[in-house]
């Protein structure tokens, strides 16, 4: 895929249409894996994976709500590799601009890199256009244009929220590039559990406190009722006056500490040094960093 070169405009030289180079390559790799598999089963060995490795997904419950003086974003903190929890406390609320944040569901790498890229483009745009405040709709457009270009292969489902001079805005962005502008929205595997809470209790023009409490209850619904979501609640309040309150681990209802304490831990679980066999030891002194100081002379540059 093409990279953005370091040019004046971040969208200058942007490729048009979808590049199918990697589709061909991926098919080749899949074919190779499958023929390896066929020959291995024939010779009686146990087969290794005949599919490409799974990406880490974020399972996820993410929500956003517009209230009287801004927006509140919320997210859970579990990321999964198929049915195993990969990260018990990952961050799903990403920075886009000082006044814009974005929650991401789907493939973890995709949400992370997509939001980082657009954040970078927004910063360059601010620099190139007189240093003012970014608009939420700009971030939305940059995101949707990129996601559509990748025809849904970039699996990022986003809840984008922020405040600009036109007021508070909340967008939902789907992996194929469609968007919706709404007063409240939920995405991810836990979106149904969270939306149930929203549909029951959302009102226009809530206070910050009411909005935050609603968002927390929605995320908690996802955490406890959806298997793909879990651990803690993260929130982010973006206010009309431009201030932001990042509530990382705002609620932690799943601390395992007290449960572990309640178990009288057996001594066999404390493994002292010497429990595991050491077959041999070698010590290799660390070499230098590869930098040698040469003689330094200073001479004036001639212009």
């Amino acid at each position, binding site marked *: 895929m093409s990279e953005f070169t370091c040019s004046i405009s971040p969208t200058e030289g942007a490729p048009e249409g979808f590049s199918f180079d990697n589709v061909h390559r991926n098919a080749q790799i899949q074919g190779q894996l499958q023929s390896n598999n066929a020959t291995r089963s024939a010779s009686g060995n146990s087969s290794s994976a005949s599919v490409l490795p799974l990406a880490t997904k974020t399972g996820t419950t993410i929500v956003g709500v517009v209230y009287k003086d801004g927006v509140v974003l919320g997210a859970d903190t579990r990321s999964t590799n198929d*049915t*195993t*929890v990969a990260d018990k406390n990952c961050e799903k609320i990403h920075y886009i601009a000082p006044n814009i944040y974005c929650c991401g569901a789907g493939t973890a790498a995709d949400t992370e890199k997509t939001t980082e890229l657009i954040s970078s483009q927004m910063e360059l745009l601010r620099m190139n256009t007189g240093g003012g405040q970014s608009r939420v709709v700009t971030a939305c457009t940059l995101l949707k244009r990129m996601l559509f270009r990748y025809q849904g292969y970039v699996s990022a489902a986003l809840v984008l929220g922020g405040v600009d001079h036109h007021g508070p805005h909340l967008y939902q962005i789907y992996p194929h590039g469609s968007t919706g502008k709404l007063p409240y929205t939920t995405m991810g595997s836990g979106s149904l559990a969270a939306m149930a809470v929203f549909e029951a209790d959302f009102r226009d023009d809530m206070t910050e406190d009411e909005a935050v409490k609603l968002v927390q209850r929605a995320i908690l619904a996802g955490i406890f009722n959806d*298997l*793909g979501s*879990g651990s803690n609640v993260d929130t982010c309040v973006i206010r009309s006056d431009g201030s932001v309150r990042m509530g990382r681990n705002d609620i932690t*209802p799943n601390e*395992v500490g007290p449960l572990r304490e309640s178990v009288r831990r*057996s001594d066999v679980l404390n493994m002292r040094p*010497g429990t595991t066999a050491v077959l041999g030891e070698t010590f290799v002194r660390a070499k230098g960093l590869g930098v040698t100081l040469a003689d330094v002379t200073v001479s004036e540059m001639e212009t």
Partner: protein
Amino acid sequence: SKLHPLTGRCVLGSAGCKTDVDQLRSVLDIKMKVYAHNHRKPMATPSVAQMLGNTLYYKRFFPYYSFNVLAGIDSEGKGAVYSYDAIGSFERTPFSASGSGQSFLIPLMDNVISHKNRLDERRDLPAEEVVEIVKDAFLTAGERDIYTGDAVDIMVITKDGIDKQTFQLKAD
């Protein structure tokens, strides 16, 4: 409950498809009633083990989607654990684990219960200590397997009977 007492000294635990598990239990209960009627005594654990294996193989070509663990007291009064696959292959083992969280439990038990890959002195573990190890193990499985959680039913089977307790896990 995922644990089903078959006699006063023998409990069956099953993972897999619940409807097949329920049906298997139903079938076993009936067969054990017939045995008790004919032999005028409750079935001994090794006999239950064999019967379960036979019952599963009977449906070799349309299997019960059920991954079983049988636990009880054998005819000598010692503890017995049997592990099964879906079509009735079984073996008496020191311990067993089945289900979506088995990958998290088995390596731990290999090390702690069977004392594998350890150089320190092995000692006999009393029942209470093993129960605490099991609780800790389930906490671990609950952390990393999305399907494991809510609560654990623990049954301690001795020659005097079955002791039941429930341990709460995280609900997320």
